């Protein structure tokens, strides 16, 4: 599938903290190896126990829309053809304490509502160096 914002829109520079999230085709977050606290976005010292070692925490990718806004003014010229688009904050059913920023595939922006259940879907993309990405996006699975 194409990304909601188009295949030419910005992609991440991959680093240790985001590689799994953007390439694995699963929702993978950073958990502290000592105390298990999940940080998103990831950071270098655990806010729970000051630990410096981390491990992946996989989510089943089911969640809920916590907030939604509809962008009409394309602040970047490359998004002129993408507006209006919805930006959502998603909470995960199985990893509390985290909000993920995302886009919604398959539903008109003005039909996305707070409280709707969502599931993760993944759009294929490739970086200029050829590395393949699977960018997490969301689909609405049930009404409020």
């Amino acid at each position, binding site marked *: 599938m194409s990304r909601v*914002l188009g295949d*030419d*829109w*910005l*992609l*991440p*520079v991959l*680093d240790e903290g*985001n590689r799994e999230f*953007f390439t694995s085709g699963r929702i993978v977050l950073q958990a502290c190896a000592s105390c298990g606290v999940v*940080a*998103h*976005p*990831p*950071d270098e010292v655990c*806010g729970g126990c000051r630990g410096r070692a981390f491990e992946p925490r996989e989510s089943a990718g089911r969640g809920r829309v*916590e*907030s*939604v*806004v*509809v*962008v*009409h*003014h394309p*602040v*970047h010229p*490359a*998004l002129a053809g*993408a507006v*209006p*688009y919805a*930006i959502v*904050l998603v*909470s995960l059913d199985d990893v*509390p*304490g*985290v*909000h993920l*920023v*995302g*886009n919604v595939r398959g539903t008109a922006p*003005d039909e996305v509502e*707070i409280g709707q259940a969502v599931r993760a879907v993944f759009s294929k993309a490739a*970086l*200029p160096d050829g590395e393949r990405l699977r*960018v997490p996006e969301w689909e609405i699975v049930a009404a409020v």
Partner: protein
Amino acid sequence: MQGSAAVVGVGESEYYVRGRSPDSEFQLACTAIERAVADAGLRTSDIDGVVSYMDSRNDPMRLARALGLGDLRYTAQPFGGGGNNAAAAIQLADAAVSAGYAKHVVVFRALAQGQFGRFGQARAGGAGQVPGAFAWSAVYGLLSPAQECALHTARFLHDHGLDQEALCDVALACYANAQRNPRALRHGQPLTRETYHASRWIVEPFHLYDCCPENDGAAAVVITSGERARDLARRPVGILAAAQGKGPPFGSAAFQPDSFPGVFYKSVARDLWERAGVAPGDVDVAQFYENFTGPVLMAIAELGFCEPGELGDFVADGALEGPDARFPFNTSGGNLGEAYIHGFELMNEAVRQVRGESTCQVEGAELSLVVAGPGYAPGSAVVFAP
């Protein structure tokens, strides 16, 4: 000692629509400082401290040379890249003169976005790849402060049964008050509820008129000790209390559940009222930094003026408009109506209210509040008093 310092001079440049200033940002800064110093009845050579905020480009050494300042004894800026630290800058100057590190400190903000580019513009450079923490949002088209504040606002309105009219009421008040202020860029351009609702969406729930414009200009104040202030030309306006910061829990991003939705002002409010020894109901006039209308609503609640669910009534029926308002608010027009000088124009207005010199003067105003920049942490606020 806290509360011992006073504002003894205010000044500003002319304000301009973004890109229309004939002067450079540095020249605007010098103009505002010169006028504040003159208002205090001081000479620029009396100034020995320089404070700004928001990563000011106007270096104190360059200002000292241009303005003929005296011995520089104190220069500082708070951490943080937004208008949220305007009151923290006042607090730094208060601390400096109260501790005796400097005698006359100028605090200012200057911007010429025509010269240096737009603050509120998308931070993404161009299509391609984006590194670091910004990637988590930029990849999904979350690029601007308007969009970030809208995500908080949308959920806040939803949770508390508030509608678009509450946002509209904030915008209408700023425009109405600007009609009384010849300095205001929206002077002569009144706003109606119909025009507000007919205006285009920037990012729902923000219409065009929910978003502050981008402007060029500079504003400055001079701060000295209360003791020294008594010898100067103008009636001193005391810094009753200032507060900056954010309380725990500290999420790793603006949207983490521990502080969502909100504007991160709960600990600032607690410290401010405790230090000032007053309650929200004692405030005579308030200036709230409105980058966007939504954060103003959240800040009114977090500062303790009403419960979130009461906000609709709190701002309705012109409750924020004019000198006789139920809640006198952004009396110069604020960021929306007067000019967006990253909120420092609100400081000048708050001081003028205590002096009795506002174009929308609240009769007998004594306690004068500025809430510097709701929506970004660490936030800051200050209460002025005679």
